[in-house]
């Protein structure tokens, strides 16, 4: 993580603040308080789902703070070539040089790669795989590309990335497809396109009629079409499962959340824990990383995982209610405005 350079005196001042009682932080927050998080979905109209998230931005002009843009795009691919039967997800993180102006472009590439690996390994895991990414079994499937752009980093970038990813995936709509079978008309050249539910060709007295009760025929769907060109589609499956992360910064023996840049420089050791809260099941830890230099005992780690789950659950509930609000704002309210026009 790129950090600002601070002096030893400032470092020890910040560390002493965490260990004092009551713990003191530069902006007056408690150890487990987050800065204000702003979220907007549907920011990239050309994408299938998108979200813009900022942590700690000023209220009146939206500037400053950590800012992340996430967008998903769906592409069709052949299962034989690159695809996976049932679809697959690929995540990429790009860091704008404006977010890390002190890094050279090689260092920026390394940072991007680290973030990409963490995000991709967590989100492309089979336990989170949505079940509506297939189109034609064993032939065609959807490739979901999740692109994250880091526009500004004012600390706590991983939490922002995972939250933005969850919001963009929540917002993603998969176009509805219908598989299509080509039937050659008996005796003539050319094909007749029929739907899966049965062919709709002209009634020809000489033609052999296929009985609807004949179940011996196996449908050989070879292609697909969009049911409705203008419909955005159905929601991506498994939206409740997408995880969020909690970064626990560790000035031993305590821990705190949502570090600003100077706090990150003063306390390099962090534990990144990614939790998923599927409905009606117990929560899962989807990923865990120790970042920065320092040591951690197993006992401490166990406690951190338990504590982290509590914080993650609060964040999850808050994020969910905001996502539902955004859904209402964009769909219901827009429809009402259109009806009143």
């Amino acid at each position: 993580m790129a950090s600002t350079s601070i002096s030893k005196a400032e470092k020890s001042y910040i560390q002493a603040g965490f260990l004092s009682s009551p713990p003191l932080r530069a902006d007056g927050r408690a150890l487990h308080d987050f800065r204000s998080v702003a979220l907007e979905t549907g920011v990239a109209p050309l994408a299938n789902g998108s979200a813009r998230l900022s942590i700690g931005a000023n209220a009146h002009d939206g500037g400053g703070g950590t800012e992340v843009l996430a967008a998903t795009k769906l592409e069709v691919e052949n299962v034989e070539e690159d695809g996976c039967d049932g679809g697959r997800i690929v995540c990429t993180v790009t860091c704008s040089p404006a977010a890390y102006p002190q890094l050279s472009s090689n260092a920026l590439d390394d940072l991007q790669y680290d973030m990409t690996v963490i995000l991709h390994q967590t989100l492309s895991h089979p336990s989170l795989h949505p079940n509506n990414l297939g189109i034609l079994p064993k032939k065609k499937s959807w490739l979901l590309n999740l692109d994250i752009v880091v526009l500004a980093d004012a600390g706590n970038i991983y939490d922002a990335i995972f939250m933005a990813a969850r919001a963009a995936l929540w917002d993603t709509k998969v176009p509805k497809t219908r598989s299509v079978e080509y039937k050659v008309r008996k005796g003539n050249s050319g094909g007749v396109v029929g739907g899966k539910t049965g062919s709709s060709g002209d009634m020809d007295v000489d033609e052999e009629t296929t009985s609807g009760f004949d179940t011996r025929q196996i449908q050989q769907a070879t292609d697909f079409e969009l049911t409705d060109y203008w419909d955005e589609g159905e929601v991506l499956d498994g939206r409740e499962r997408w995880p969020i992360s909690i970064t626990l910064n560790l000035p031993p023996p305590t821990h705190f959340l949502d570090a600003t840049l100077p706090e990150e420089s003063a306390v390099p050791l962090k534990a990144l824990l990614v939790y998923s809260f599927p409905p009606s099941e117990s929560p899962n830890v989807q990923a865990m990383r120790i970042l920065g230099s320092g040591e951690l005992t197993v006992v401490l780690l166990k406690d951190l995982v338990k504590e982290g789950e509590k914080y993650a659950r609060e964040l999850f509930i808050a994020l969910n209610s905001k996502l539902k609000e955004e859904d209402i704002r964009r769909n219901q309210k827009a429809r009402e405005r259109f009806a009143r026009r």
Partner: protein
Amino acid sequence: MGSRVEILNEGGFRSDGRRQFELRDMTIDLSQRGIADGSALITHGLTQVLVSVFGPREAKMRSQTIHDRANINVEVSVAAFSTGERRKRSRGDKRILEIASTIKSTFEPVVQTNLYPRSQIDVFVQVLQQDGGVLQACINGTTLALINSGIPMLDFVCAVTGGVHSTSPMLDLTLLEENDIPNVTVAMMPKTGKIALVTMETRLHVDRFKEIFRLVSDAGKVIHGEMKSAVLSRSTSLVTAMGSGPRTRGGDLEERDVDDQMNNY
């Protein structure tokens, strides 16, 4: 035949409902982003570009410093989701490097670099959405970000695209129009009317060029009006914010009296 979109129909309307010489809706957002010294988010219709400027500051690469001027370093990155078809463009993509070097050569004579020898001015351009006129948006965004960061320039640089559909000239082209008709991008400086950039990658008849060139230069003045009012409103809000804070030292004698009276209560 019936499904082909008309660039300009008999009623004088273009494919997005605009008239021939009508420019797209423009929005400018000059609020601070991250730790940039100056930034601007500009949209022309559906094309959206974010430009952040850092500097003048110490150069990261000593080899690129110039002894008597500041070095302007432009980096462009295009978001993969900016177009209809997702295209991941690496930072070294030739097209992107060309846009970056075009922006650099446009601003080198305009920015007063001789005031900051041996330092570097970084311009980071992020294209968020593309619908034609990307270079135009990048140049306009860069002008605003440079102004926002307080770097002295000789004048604004305003860019517009123009094209000719058979014999009718058109301004501010969308992607559909750019792919179809010959088009030129012109960046001009409104105070003097001087041209900072002319670039064209298609073929245009020399008889048509004069007309479209003149038109585009005039359109630049309209863009200048918008940019000026955005900068003015941003400056006004900053000055108001500065003025409304508490005065800790100095100030008028009357004000001090008022403060003393307040303290009595």
